[in-house]
C-alpha cells in the first residue's frame, strides 16, 4: 500500500504542470476551439515531446508508462489546465489497435486517430451499433452514422465500428475498421467546454484491409478501451475540480461583501467544507479505478468511479458558481470554462445513472 508517485511519474507531473501553467491561457483555449481542428497543433507537438502520448503505453508497446496511474498523473494535469487535446483518443485507439495485435508506436509518437463508435440512437450503450458493413466483391460496403466523434476534424484516420452480423444491440458482430477522412462526411462543430467534434456519415466501400482484427469480435476491446478512457476522463475531471477549488477558495478569501470576505460567512464555510470532502472522495475514486484498471474488478471500479465523479462534478460546479455569484456565470472569468467542461464529463462514456445501474449489475455478478 503506497500512495506516493514513483520518481518518474513525479517528474512527469512536475514538468507537465509547469509547462501547462506557462503555456495554456483561457484565451488560447477559446481560440483553439475556433480553429479547424479544435486544438493547437503546435501545443500537441510540444506535449508529444514531453512524452504525453508515450506515457499512455508500456515499453513493449513503444511507450514508457501505460499503467492506470500513468493515465492518472497525465490527465489530472490536463484537467487542471482545462484544455482539449486528443489524448483520450490516443487511449481509446491504442487499446483497440493493441487488442487487434496491431502496433501502436505511431500513437505513442503523437499520431492522432479518432474513434467513431457511438451512434445517434445509442446514447451510452456500447453494444448498440446500427452502422452496417457487408462484404462485397469490392471490399467492405459500410453505411451508417456516428455521433459526436471527438477530434474527428483533426484526425489523420478514424477507427470506425460497424456491425457485420447480429441484431442492433448484440455484443457479437461488431467489427472495427480503419477509414480515412476521404471515406466519410463530417459535420464538425465546437464542444461545450472546448475542443471540436463531428457528426460522421459513411456510405463507402472500403478495401478488405480496412478491417482491423477478426470480424465481429470488437466488443471486448471496446470495453477495455472505454475502461481506460473512462479512467483518463475521470482523472481529467479531478484536475478540473482542483482548479475550480482553487478559484473558489481564492474568491472566498478576496471577495468582500457586507464588510468582510465572503469566506467569513459560516454558511459558505460549511458548504465549502462539504465540497472539499467530496473532492477528496473523487481523488480516492480515481485512485481506486486507476489501481484496478488491469485487475479482475475493473468494470466494477469503472462504474463506481464514473458515478462518483459525475455526482461530485455536479456538486462542485453548482456550488462554485453559486458561491461566486454572477461572475461565476460569465465567460470572462476562468470558472465559466471549467464549469462547462467539467459538466460535460457526465455526457461521455455513460452518465451517473448509467454507471449506477451498471455498478449494481457488476456487484451482483461479482457476489454470485
Amino acid at each position, binding site marked *: 500500500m503506497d500512495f506516493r508517485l514513483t520518481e518518474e511519474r513525479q517528474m512527469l507531473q512536475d514538468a507537465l504542470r509547469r509547462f501547462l501553467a506557462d503555456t495554456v491561457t483561457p484565451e488560447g483555449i477559446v481560440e483553439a476551439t475556433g480553429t479547424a481542428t479544435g486544438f493547437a497543433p503546435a501545443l500537441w507537438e510540444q506535449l508529444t515531446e514531453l512524452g504525453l502520448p508515450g506515457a499512455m503505453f508500456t515499453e513493449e508497446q513503444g511507450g514508457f508508462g501505460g499503467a492506470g496511474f500513468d493515465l492518472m498523473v497525465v490527465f489530472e494535469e490536463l484537467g487542471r489546465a482545462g484544455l482539449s487535446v486528443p489524448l483520450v483518443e490516443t487511449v481509446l485507439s491504442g487499446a483497440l489497435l493493441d487488442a487487434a495485435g496491431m502496433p501502436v508506436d505511431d500513437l505513442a509518437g503523437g499520431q492522432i486517430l479518432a474513434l467513431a463508435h457511438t451512434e445517434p440512437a445509442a446514447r451510452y450503450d456500447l453494444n448498440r451499433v446500427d452502422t452496417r458493413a457487408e462484404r462485397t466483391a469490392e471490399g467492405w460496403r459500410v453505411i451508417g452514422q456516428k455521433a459526436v466523434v471527438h477530434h474527428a476534424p483533426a484526425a489523420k484516420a478514424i477507427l470506425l465500428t460497424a456491425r457485420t452480423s447480429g441484431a442492433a444491440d448484440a455484443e457479437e458482430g461488431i467489427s472495427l475498421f480503419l477509414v480515412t477522412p476521404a471515406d466519410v462526411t463530417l459535420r464538425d462543430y465546437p464542444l461545450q467546454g472546448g475542443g471540436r467534434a463531428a457528426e460522421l456519415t459513411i456510405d463507402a466501400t472500403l478495401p478488405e484491409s480496412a478491417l482491423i482484427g477478426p470480424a465481429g469480435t470488437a466488443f471486448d476491446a471496446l470495453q477495455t478501451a472505454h475502461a481506460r478512457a473512462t479512467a483518463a476522463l475521470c482523472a481529467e475531471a479531478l484536475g478540473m475540480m482542483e482548479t475550480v477549488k482553487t478559484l473558489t477558495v481564492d474568491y472566498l478569501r478576496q471577495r468582500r461583501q457586507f464588510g468582510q470576505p465572503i469566506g467569513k460567512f459560516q454558511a459558505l464555510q460549511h458548504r465549502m467544507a462539504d465540497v472539499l470532502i467530496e473532492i477528496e472522495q473523487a481523488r480516492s475514486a480515481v485512485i481506486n479505478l486507476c489501481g484496478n484498471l488491469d485487475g479482475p474488478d475493473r468494470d466494477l471500479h469503472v462504474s463506481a468511479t464514473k458515478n462518483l465523479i459525475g455526482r461530485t462534478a*455536479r456538486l462542485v460546479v453548482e456550488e462554485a458558481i453559486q458561491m461566486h455569484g454572477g461572475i461565476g456565470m460569465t465567460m470572462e472569468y476562468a470558472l465559466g470554462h471549467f464549469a462547462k467542461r467539467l459538466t460535460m464529463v457526465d455526457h461521455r462514456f455513460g*452518465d451517473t445513472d448509467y454507471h449506477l445501474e451498471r455498478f449494481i449489475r457488476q456487484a451482483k455478478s461479482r457476489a454470485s
Partner: protein
Amino acid sequence: MDLSFTPEQEAFRAEVREFLNDKLPKRLSGKVRQGKRLTKQDYEEWHAILNDRGWLGVTWPTEHGGPGWDVVQRHIFEEETTAAHAPRVVPFGLAMLGPVLMTFGSDEQKAHYLPRILNGEDWWCQGYSEPGAGSDLANVQTTAVRDGDHYVVNGQKTWTTLGQHANMIFCLVRTSKEGKKQEGISFLLIDMNTPGIEVRPIVLIDGEPEVNEVWFSDVRVPVANLVGEENKGWTYAKYLLTHERTNIAGVGFARAGLASLKRIAGEQQQDGRPLIENPFFAAKVAQVEIDLMAMATTNLRTLAAAAAGQAPGAESSMLKVKGTVIRQQINALARQAVGPYAQPFASESLDEGANAEPVGPDYALPATQAYFNNRKLSIYGGSNEVQRQIIAKAILEL
C-alpha cells in the same frame, strides 16, 4: 378549504385560453417551445398584442391602463401564457418601474412614462447591481452630483439584463455619503442616449449576451428625472424588490420545463427503452414533480393570503428558494436526458431561420443552455442565501 376555482375564475381561464389561441402568433410560441433566441422585435410584437387587449400591465390598476386583476386572475393568466409558450413579458418597465412610478413618481412622470411603457416607446432596463456589491445591494458606489438643473452621474452598473435593447434605465445612485449606506441613495431615470453612457455585453456560460455592464462618465441627467425625494431611493428600491416578486415561484415555468423534460425523456432511448421508463430516471422526475405539486399549492396559499390583504413575509423567500431549486432540478434532469448530445455547442442553430440544422435532436442544445443559464435563478433577485437569511431571521428573531 377548497382547492377548486370559482366558475368566474374558470370562465376567465377560458377567456385567456381563447385569446392565446387566437392572438399568440405560432411563430413566437414555436420559438419559445424550441428554445430559440428571441429578438427585440419578438418581444415588442408580443407586448403590442397584449397591450391591444389591455392585458400588458397585469399588475397595473385600471386607471393606469391595467386590467385590474386580482392575484388569482394574474396567477391563471401566468399559468395559461406559460403553458401556451408565450414569450415572457419583459419585466423592467412593467413589473418593476411602473409600480414605483405609480406610488412615488410625480404626476408629470406618471403621465409621461407610464403610457410609453405600455405602448412600447420605451424599453427600460435596471441599474441596481454594481460590480462590488453582489448581494449587498445598498452598497451603491455610482455617484450623482447636483450641478444646476442636472445630476452628473459617474460609475458602473452591471448584470443589466437585456440592456442592449433599452433606451431608458432606472438607476440607484449615491447622492450623499452621510449616514448609513442605505441613506443617501437616490432613484434616477436616465436616457440611455445621453452622452457618456457605454453598454458592454457580458457573455454568459451559455454563450449568450443576456446581461451587460453599463458605464457612466459625467452623464448629465435632468433633475426632473429624480423619482420622489433625493436620498430616499432605498425606500423605492425596496418597494420595487417586493413587487418584483409577483411570480417569484415560477410555477408556470417549472410546469413547462417538466412537460418538456418528459417529452425529451420519452424520446431518448436507453437500452432499447424510453429513458422515462428507466426506474432511476423516472424516480428523479417523479420526485421533482411531487415537489412541484406541493410548491404550486404553497404558491396558491401565498396568493390567497395576499388577496386577503396579508403582507407576504418569509413566504415569498421560501417560494423563491424552493421555486428556483425545483426549476434548476428540472433543468439538470433535462440536461442529463439529452445524453451525449449535450456536448455540441453549435449555437448558431438557435437563431430563427438559421441555415444551420441543430446537431442531434433539436431539444438538445436548448436543454443544455437552459441548465447553464438557469444557474442564475438562485443568484439573482436576492440570492438564495439572502433568502435563507430572511427566513431564519423572521422565525428566530435574533
